[in-house]
């Protein structure tokens, strides 16, 4: 048997080369494991999750205080208040018992006919109220009880807005902030990880094992999965918080826009990750990574500032919701506002996916051309050339 044949036989014992997906997945799993073992990553994620949890807890404490005020009803007031579900009514046998209930803090106020009220508070003026009832507070007027008993006038709006402007501001800020923070954090992580492989020269060993596209795909997939998981946890906690604290109305209104946000985030982040990886591949040292990733960082920051300053500007939001870099923030806000037709998110999503595909193509070209060029920063034109 010739030596060449021997080496062929030996080769048969070796496993077949893994396919694109299997190799990319190996790279992705390594990325994820490295992140999960990093103390900095675990701590920052824990802080974000704790912040989301705190929002839920504070929300539920606030809503727990919002239970209906209690009143002690005396005499004819008992009949007047019967059937009110905005008040917790305790029937008191006489004014003395009612006063005791109030002083003990069992109730927030006493509701009594004007005549009986004078027995408790001599200064109370009988006949001053058209309904003949007096509300007695302990150390101040019982506003919430008065409000519950008041008769509101008819309310109409000339040009109705679907959402409360304050709420819109917070929702827009929420989407903007979550996108901005996650995209920036994981964008920087992927950039650091690319330049680390280049700086430590492990990239040459990697590229002798797997094609450059496989390596890039694995890195983008791994980090996107982490970012996506973080987003799902945060939005999940926020929605859970709204549901648990009984703000079901808001939950129902926010639900669709949050779902769109998650879908848009997924593609938007993959696009940014490919660009961050390509930008990072152009430098050879971790210290220099900022010089090439700044333009990509801008792409992340601009939609955040736009949504903070222009969340009430229909035109700016409409443009934002179609520009792929800002669509992950702009479109969910418009869905929340109810100004987007049902097909608009779909069109915008198609645009985003097309741009993401383009970003991956351009990104992998830059990445492949620049990855083995050590030393000085690779010029963009050289990195794009064949």
């Amino acid at each position, binding site marked *: 048997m010739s*030596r*060449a044949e*021997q*080496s062929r036989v*030996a*080769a048969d*014992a*070796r*496993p*077949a*080369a*893994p396919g694109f997906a299997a*190799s990319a997945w*190996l*790279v992705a799993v*390594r990325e994820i494991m*490295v992140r999960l073992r990093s103390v900095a990553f675990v701590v920052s994620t824990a802080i974000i999750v704790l912040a989301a949890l705190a929002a839920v807890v504070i929300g539920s404490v606030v809503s727990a205080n919002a239970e209906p005020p209690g009143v002690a009803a005396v005499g004819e007031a008992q009949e007047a208040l019967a059937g009110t579900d905005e008040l917790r009514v305790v029937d008191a046998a006489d004014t003395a018992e009612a006063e005791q209930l109030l002083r003990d803090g069992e109730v927030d106020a006493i509701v009594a006919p004007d005549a009986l009220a004078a027995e408790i508070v001599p200064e109370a003026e009988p006949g001053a109220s058209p309904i003949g009832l007096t509300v007695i507070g302990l150390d101040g007027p019982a506003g919430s009880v008065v409000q519950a008993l008041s008769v509101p006038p008819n309310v109409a709006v000339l040009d109705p807005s679907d959402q409360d402007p304050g709420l819109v501001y917070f929702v827009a800020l929420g989407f903007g902030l979550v996108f901005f923070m996650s995209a920036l954090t994981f964008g920087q992580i992927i950039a650091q990880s690319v330049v*680390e*492989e280049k700086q*430590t*020269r*492990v*990239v*040459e*060993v*990697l*590229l*002798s*094992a*797997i*094609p450059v596209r496989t390596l890039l795909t694995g890195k983008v997939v791994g980090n996107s999965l982490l970012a996506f998981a973080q987003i799902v946890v945060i939005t999940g906690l926020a929605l859970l918080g709204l549901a648990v604290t009984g703000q079901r109305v808001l939950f129902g209104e926010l639900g669709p826009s949050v779902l769109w946000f998650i879908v848009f985030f997924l593609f938007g982040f993959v696009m940014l990750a490919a660009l961050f990886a390509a930008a990072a591949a152009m430098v050879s040292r971790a210290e220099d990574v900022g010089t090439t990733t700044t333009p990509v960082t801008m792409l992340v920051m601009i939609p955040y500032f736009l949504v903070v300053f222009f969340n009430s500007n229909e035109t700016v939001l409409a443009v934002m919701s179609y520009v792929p870099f800002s669509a992950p923030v702009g479109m969910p806000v418009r869905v929340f506002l109810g100004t987007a037709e049902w097909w608009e998110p779909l069109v915008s999503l198609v645009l985003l996916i097309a741009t993401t595909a383009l970003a991956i193509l351009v990104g992998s070209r830059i990445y492949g051309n620049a990855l*083995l060029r*050590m030393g000085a920063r690779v010029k963009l034109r050289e990195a794009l050339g064949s």
Partner: protein
Amino acid sequence: MLQLDHLSKSYGERLALDDVSFTVAPGRMTGFVGGNGAGKTTAMRIVLGVLEADRGTVTLEGRGLTQTDRQRFGYMPEERGLYPKMRVLEQLVYFARLHGWAPAAARRNALELLERLSLEERRDDKLETLSLGNQQRAQIAAALVHRPEVLVLDEPFSGLDPIAVESVQQVLTDAAAAGAPVLFSSHQLDIVERLCDDLVIIAGGRIAAAGARDELRESHRSSRYELLLTADAGWLREVPGVEVVDSDGGWALFDVDADATRQAVLRRAVEHGEVVSFTREQTTLAQIFREVVR
């Protein structure tokens, strides 16, 4: 048989490789020798597909190399590199798996190599905590952990202590004995000389000499001899065709113009007194190298 055929590569204006051709035979250790910037690393990167040649081809058993073929190469780049914060064993298993090995087999390969390279005690340490020599061993393990069919190693011996050099030598000769073509570059010409079956000398991007080590030695054999007599050797200067380089009493170092002159010198030496030794100076790889590179 790994064959490089008319490879050319330039970086901008500079021609790094100029029509480079040579072969690396299976089961043979081939030493790749050249000065700094001579083109060794460029040639090796092209073989591995990490770099593309402007012209020329690299073939294995007569077929062009595909990504699948290259998966079966073991490569140690000139610029060492592994993940500094990853544990040694974990890292080796990762590289074996990238080459398609199942987790259990990858682990077995890695452990076996770590043991052969006397690195098993450090297997769960992060790479960055290892000494440079041990990092170098880990790098060699990373090149071999997937049981490559062809080995291409750029300076595998640099930075190793003598014991480590020996264990790495053993690992490489075993690979060659198993039928793998092994190509490695080195500045340590003594190691290359001792270890290699074949030699490739590159200078300024061109192949200056290539062939079996013994044949190269033969074709560059020395015409310099050393003579040690019990009596004075001053008569040597009068022998026609002899050029004395140095002499001291009974000892002399001289060049001869032909084999016949050498025989004449020996005869006269025997007549003049007792011959202690008469030897041809060994041609070292360093001498051959200087000669062909000049």
